[in-house]
């Protein structure tokens, strides 16, 4: 018979993350948001017959961080996948899940929850001393004696549309064009005015001597006429 023997807390690791263990009843009122996967390292038991073991764990939604993105995570649609699709199970309302009759060896558990990126978990089930497993987050190689998994990050699938601002209009190609025109129309004459008339003449002569017909001397030529 598959009886889960959970002894959470008996060998709690001194790591920071282990504090975030919430009692099950408080959870339904929480408004989704950070998911914690709490897989007890000891939640393993030998099955009644054969070489199968049970792996039990927990996914926990917690009210930390994030606004809005939790909307597209339906709690009911959190899937836990063993070995790339060999078995699929779902999280219960309190976040618990379990796989049964898992043979000894090294396995991979993945969590699919829309809106969150989870690290896959490597789970070693030892054949020699039954009941002993090791779990490691494969993404950051963090060993978990008590398997408290935090989602690596939340996933925002959409670009955030910035609210309308004058800056965005100015930054748009048309805004830039207009800005450039304004600069040419109003600032340029000022710059030319402030220049020493001698200097202007010298510059114009220089340009003429180069023989390159430029827009500026074309303009000034017309003005002089």
């Amino acid at each position: 018979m598959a009886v889960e023997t959970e002894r959470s807390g008996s060998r709690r690791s001194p790591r920071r993350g282990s504090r975030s263990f919430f009692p099950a009843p408080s959870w339904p009122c929480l408004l989704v948001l950070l998911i914690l996967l709490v897989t007890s390292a000891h939640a393993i038991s030998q099955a009644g017959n054969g070489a199968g073991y049970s792996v039990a764990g927990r996914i926990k939604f917690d009210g930390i961080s994030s606004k809005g993105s939790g909307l597209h995570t339906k709690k009911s649609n959190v899937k836990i996948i063993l070995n790339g699709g060999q078995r699929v199970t779902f999280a219960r309302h309190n976040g618990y899940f379990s796989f049964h009759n898992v043979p000894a060896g090294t396995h991979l558990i993945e969590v699919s929850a829309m809106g969150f990126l989870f690290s896959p978990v490597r789970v070693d089930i030892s054949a020699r001393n039954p009941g002993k497993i090791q779990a490691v987050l494969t993404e950051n190689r963090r060993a978990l004696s008590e398997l408290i998994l935090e989602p690596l990050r939340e996933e925002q699938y959409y670009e955030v549309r910035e609210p309308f601002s004058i800056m965005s209009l100015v930054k748009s190609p048309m805004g830039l064009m207009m800005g450039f025109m304004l600069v040419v129309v109003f600032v340029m004459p000022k710059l030319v005015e402030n220049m020493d008339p001698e200097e202007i003449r010298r510059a114009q002569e220089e340009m003429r001597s180069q023989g390159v017909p430029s827009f500026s001397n074309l303009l000034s030529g017309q003005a002089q006429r």
Partner: protein
Amino acid sequence: MAMFVKPIIGLIIALVFCSNVSTALYEDQVGVVDWYQQYIGKVKHAIFHAQKAGRRRVVVATEENVIASLDLRRGELFWRHVLGENDSVDQIDIALGKYVITLSSGSILRTWNLPDGQMVWESFLQVSASSMSLFYVPASIEVGTDQQIFVSAGGCLHAVSSIDGEVIWKREFTDSLEIQKLFQTPDGDITAIGFSSSSQIDIYQLSAKNGDILVHKSASFPGGFSREASFVSGDVFVTLDATRSILVLVNLNGGEIRFHQTHISDLAEGYSGTAAILPQKFTGMFALELDSLIMLMKVESGRDLEIIEKIPHPASISDSLLLANGQQAFAMVKHEETKVHLTVKLDTDLKSNILKESINLDSQRGSVQKVFLNNYVKTDKSHGFRALVVMEDHSLLLVQQGEIVWSREDGLASIIASTTSELPVEKGVSVAKVEHSIFEWIKGHLLKVKGTLMLANAEDLAAIQRMRLKSFEKTKMTRDHNGFRKLLVVLTRAGKVLALHTGDGRIVWSLLLSPLHSSDSCQHLIPVDIYQWQVPHHHAMDENPSVLVISRCGLHSDAPGVILIVDSYSGKVVSSSKLSHSVLQVMPLPLTDSTEQRLHIIIDDNKKAHLYPRTPESINIFRPELPNTYWYSVEAVKGAIKGYSFRGNCIDTDEDDYCFDTRELWSIIFPSDSEKITGATTRKHNEVVHTQAKTIGNQDVMYKYISKNMLFVATVSPRAAGNIGSATPEEAYLVVYLIDAVTGRIIHRVTHLGAQGPIHAVVSENWVVYHYFNLRAHKYEMSVVEVNDQSRQDNKSIWKLLLGKHNLTSPVSAFSQPEVTVKSQSYFFTHSVKTMAVTSTAKGITSKQLLIGTIGDQVLALDKRYLDPRRTPDPSPSEREEGIIPLTDSLPIIPQSYVTHSLQVEGLRGIATMPAKLESTSLVFAYGVDLFFTRVAPSRTYDSLTEDFSYALLLITIVVLVASIFVTWALSEKKELEEKWR
């Protein structure tokens, strides 16, 4: 002046780059270019839940392993769960009014909350053998008490608590016992009836509290049993003998087991075939299925049989439904030409019908496969009935009062192949239409400007959104300039061809294959694949495009094939024929005839090639190409890859010009004790490569090794051929080969030690990307292999390019070693992968993106630049300029680059990409249980303005500029005049 202009231009450029446009989607753009459809698959179990108050719903389980709750009014999904691939649902039920109980893969019992679909508990039953399993929920009046669920699985009976799924007790029987019926007697005991061997019936009576066997009776029947039974009542059931020709009535009444035999030939005069008992649940009756009819029979006084009705095939009968007044009703569906007759009868009056309706059904839906009956109380207190009907094409209909209330096209949940077809060219557009559309266009843009300038009110905003989503342009039935509008022609497992419009995903036409081939005496029509047959352009413009549908007439691979050519504008059958040979492999040739029909070669199981279309013209086109045509086969079971060439016409068959013999040229045989083929992939045959040359950072040129015959094959060690977790890193290795499929030469071979499958690979241009599992790091990995042509490496300058060594001038020999260099690199990748594809564009200029279907049923677009073997941890400035990304050990997963954004294509199986006419854009169709379509632009839409581009703002800018010119002109005139006066 120049010194002032320069910084200004610099500033402008800087600003332009600051306001960079992201390729990702804004939330309000959802549905503008993409569409998403949710399906469930062919329904096999349905339970109605129609309370007086609250939402009426039906809970279904399907052959795609989906459990879903549907709205009975409109057929929409309330919730849905897709179980694992091999977790098929055996039985579903509703208990306590608010829980759905499912039993799947024979041993997993799950309870779901009916309103929201949340899993309440899951119980895994330890079974040694997998066999037929069923569960029984005793009907209890008290709600809230700890009810027990009795589950029979693998020769054991379990009592499971309905509150938490805890197993209360377990009773093991002999391994071979297959329990057929479980029920609770009025005094609370559990009775289990089953077959324990081929000729023995066992009856157990157990205590519901602890599972103690109270009574055990058994009896054997010399003729043996077929192991299917229909229970007429608690103590009478019918079964068939081992030869399926004698009906055995088993009476358990009075503590002993009695058999009554009836020959089926006595019931149906002169019938000699076999029979089957339908699994429908009736009381007092049962249904017997013969070859051409269904017989409904009543059992009188526990032994006498009476035939109620003989219904000719195709027909279907529902389970019986218990009405409030204790009567039982059941539905029968019969076909009559284009009409379907639904009749409902009561068990108290079998001679007459309580309800008789005829419904006109689309003939492309085929015959009725299953019917589920439900009743409701009308306002005048009489009974009304509604029926859920599953059709041959896997669609689901709700029929009520002779009308189809809603229908779901659930055949689309099992697409096996897809192709595309162009839409007709637009002819003659009326002026009024143009005026109308211009007016609409201006109106739309004015609204958009209002939206940008924050002047729009809520109503306008809604109008803008509606306009974007339901643009008339998008759903037109004609070809568009950008090539975004096409038809997706898909083939489903039910044997139906459907054409979907890429604009909104609606079904343009559909065609069911089985009625077309009924005359060919095809019992099991297995659809195989779909190809483009005719793509008219240039000189055959007046022809309609058509698609080739290939199916097989039988369950085995050596069964004769059936081909069908379907007009893709109308869905009409152009021609259909049953082949004299089987279909093992289909090869579209790069040759077309004068009407643009593509030549196809079909290889049969005798390794003979057959040319289609069977016209003298195609023979004349193909004959000169015969010596240059090769094909290969990958025999994964035998561990061999073989290459063949074509010889002349077949010798043994008489005078068939279209049949060719083939000759084995080369073979690669992998030793079965060390390597096992797990995957083989080639380039898409219609992929376009723009250029072979690639300029790299230091102005050097690299030549890609472009070969259409590059075959990627992956093998794993036999011990690591199973799932992850079944092998240790020491015994696992993965070997990857790149093989030239014409010469059989191995271009490249690489071994990954400590790696195993599953392997997903994509071959494109000169590179291969494959995904596998690294057991040492215990992470998924993706590797890229790029092959470059070394023979042209000397052609550095234009002159050398023109006069130097060239592929066309250099002699080609199968024995010469291709001068290639191979570079490869590996990266970690977080997710498991279900399928992988690469974008394809019209001219092949645009850079590529990999489309990765992840285990979470999302599609991730990953730039090919991340999978470039030339990446280094610290690229030089020239390499940076070229766009080489510094090397990282794992590939980035950017949430905004999921093309499926916040949607999940449940049960993702495949991703098809096809080029649009617009070079920057590629169309993507992802299919599984759900369908998703979108278009992607891997290098952004550099050749067209985005959908967001505001024409009105541009116009306003121009108007303002012109106005300011006039104003300044007037001002300067005035000033000049003043100066002159001065």
